[in-house]
């Protein structure tokens, strides 16, 4: 096991990692930006170093200062959390160059999964079904012929893409030429790489993802799936649950199976998530996240496995202590993301000071938060301030528990998603478990 781990993150996930380390008897070093000096993650770690000012590129993405902190404090590993440097293959390599274990998969796997075209090709090789799509398109003529093969609507995407840049929805053949030119130009401008490819557009699919764990000896298990279809119009997840409701057992088995096969094929190690679109019983691989995810607690609650501890153990060279048959999902868990944003104003992020806070407690409730009365919410970072997770022996019990937990929650000083999450839980779509990525935007009366 490691002696000391540097936590290259902030907020609730930094606390989450600190908890796992402390429970494993591993010392921790926090890094923080100037406005985060009074944060809980700074207070809870054994040591803490300021690595830069508020803006992310100068602090939480400041690789030299983070690596230097790890070296001068005698760390032997770095946990990147999610976001920031978590899927930065170059950072993983730099860690290795300095004798630090990056807690995550090998840099080459991070890089491969970070490139959408490569990821898709590898998944295809592994027998994982992917969205019908093309390689890099030679031009608009090829685009036209492949689009009529898939059937409209189709999606043009930048191979270097992310964040919707270089992406175009094409609903009719007439729109194709203009869309192709636009996507290419935007990709060139955004990524200095104008190459685009095409995919069949799946309308209002479900977003179902599979959690995997793989050790460095090649043992792979899945920990079931999560439904993350309740997404804001910006595609950010808001409410997640495990297991996915109303999913045919054949589909569930197929997803789990594909996830394990993908890991074996790619030589994956550590924790990871394969995201799939599910539509009418068909499943399509979307992307693989080579890190811990925000919504990992719902899986932890139904499987009784501490995923972050597992990440650390695996990175330290330990083998998985169980096989697939030992893993049984029990009950149901739901997570609500409590964001400092105004749902009545397009989820505009809120900065400010949290005046009063009461988080829910009691049986079956887990709260992961870095916020307390008096916390300031700097404007530089993600607006998520807490995750409330409710566990129940059944989905209905979990929903009832989450509803009372949200009712108990009191946050004064900033607008939050507390009441909005309660509204989502109250919709017939959510209660029936028959919702998809279009459901929440439809609730807001806005098209996706």
């Amino acid at each position, binding site marked *: 096991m490691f002696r000391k781990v540097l936590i290259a993150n902030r907020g609730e996930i930094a606390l989450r990692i600190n908890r796992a380390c402390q429970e494993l008897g591993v010392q921790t070093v926090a890094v923080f930006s100037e406005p985060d000096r009074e944060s809980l993650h700074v207070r809870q770690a054994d040591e803490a170093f300021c690595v830069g000012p508020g803006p992310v590129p100068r602090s939480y993405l400041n690789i030299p*200062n983070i690596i230097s902190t790890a070296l001068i404090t005698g760390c032997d590993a770095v946990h990147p959390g999610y976001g920031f440097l978590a899927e930065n293959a170059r950072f993983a390599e730099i860690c290795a160059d300095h004798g630090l274990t990056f807690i995550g998969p090998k840099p080459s796997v991070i890089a491969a999964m970070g490139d959408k075209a490569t990821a898709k090709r590898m998944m295809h090789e592994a027998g994982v079904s992917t969205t019908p799509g093309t390689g890099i398109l030679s031009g608009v003529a090829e685009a036209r012929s492949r689009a009529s093969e898939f059937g409209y609507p189709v999606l043009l995407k930048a191979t270097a893409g992310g964040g919707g840049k270089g992406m175009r929805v094409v609903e009719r053949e007439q729109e194709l030429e203009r869309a192709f030119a636009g996507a290419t130009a935007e990709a060139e401008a955004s990524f200095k790489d104008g190459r685009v490819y095409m995919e069949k557009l799946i309308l209002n699919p479900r977003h179902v993802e599979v959690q995997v764990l793989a050790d460095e000896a090649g043992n792979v298990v899945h920990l079931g799936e999560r439904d993350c279809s309740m997404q804001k119009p910006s595609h950010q997840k808001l409410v997640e649950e495990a297991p996915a409701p109303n999913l045919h057992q054949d589909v569930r088995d197929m997803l789990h199976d594909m996830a394990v096969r993908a890991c074996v094929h790619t030589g994956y190690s550590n924790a990871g998530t394969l995201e799939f679109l599910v539509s009418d019983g068909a499943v399509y691989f979307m992307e693989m996240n080579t890190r811990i995810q925000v919504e990992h607690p719902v899986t932890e609650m139904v499987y009784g496995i501490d995923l972050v501890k597992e990440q650390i153990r695996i990175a330290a060279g330990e083998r998985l202590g169980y096989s697939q048959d030992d893993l049984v999902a029990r009950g149901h868990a739901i997570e609500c993301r409590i964001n400092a944003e105004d749902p009545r104003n397009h989820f505009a992020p809120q900065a400010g000071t949290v005046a009063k806070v009461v988080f829910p407690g009691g049986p079956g409730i887990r709260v992961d938060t870095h916020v307390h009365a008096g916390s300031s919410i700097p404007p530089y970072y993600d607006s998520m301030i807490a995750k409330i997770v409710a566990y129940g022996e059944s989905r209905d019990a979990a929903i009832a528990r989450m509803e009372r937990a949200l009712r108990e929650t009191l946050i004064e000083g900033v607008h939050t998603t507390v009441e909005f999450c309660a509204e989502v839980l109250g919709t017939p779509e959510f209660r029936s478990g028959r919702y998809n990525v279009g459901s929440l935007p439809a609730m807001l009366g806005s098209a996706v």
Partner: protein
Amino acid sequence: MPHDSRSIGERVAILAAFLASSDAVRVRVERDDEEIEVARYVRSTATSATPARSDGAAVAEPPPLRVDAIKADLVGIFRLSRPLPFEGELLEDDRELAFVEALGMRNPVRSLGSGRIVTIAAEDGAAVEYGQPLFLMDRG
């Protein structure tokens, strides 16, 4: 109910909190044997406000800063350069006072012009974080 278990300091803190959350400019509390007044000064164009003791004066320009801090702009090990700078030393010109060793590199810390070294604020050989004051300089 305790009669008055709060110290004056605590009560001033409550008033300061009140003041910060309102746009009042002055709060005065009287009791038999004492009087507390907490006020804040609002610059005409300011967005920030500072609680301060009242001196009854209007909002004046603050005096210019005479002492500044040379801070670490990266994380590493702080080492004094040769010749060793000392507290009280008068520097006539810009000069390298120390360096921060990080990732095997020597990143110089310069005096940023002339002045007197008031304090060497970090220990030779210590780990320093971003923004940590290394030298306090009197710019005269």
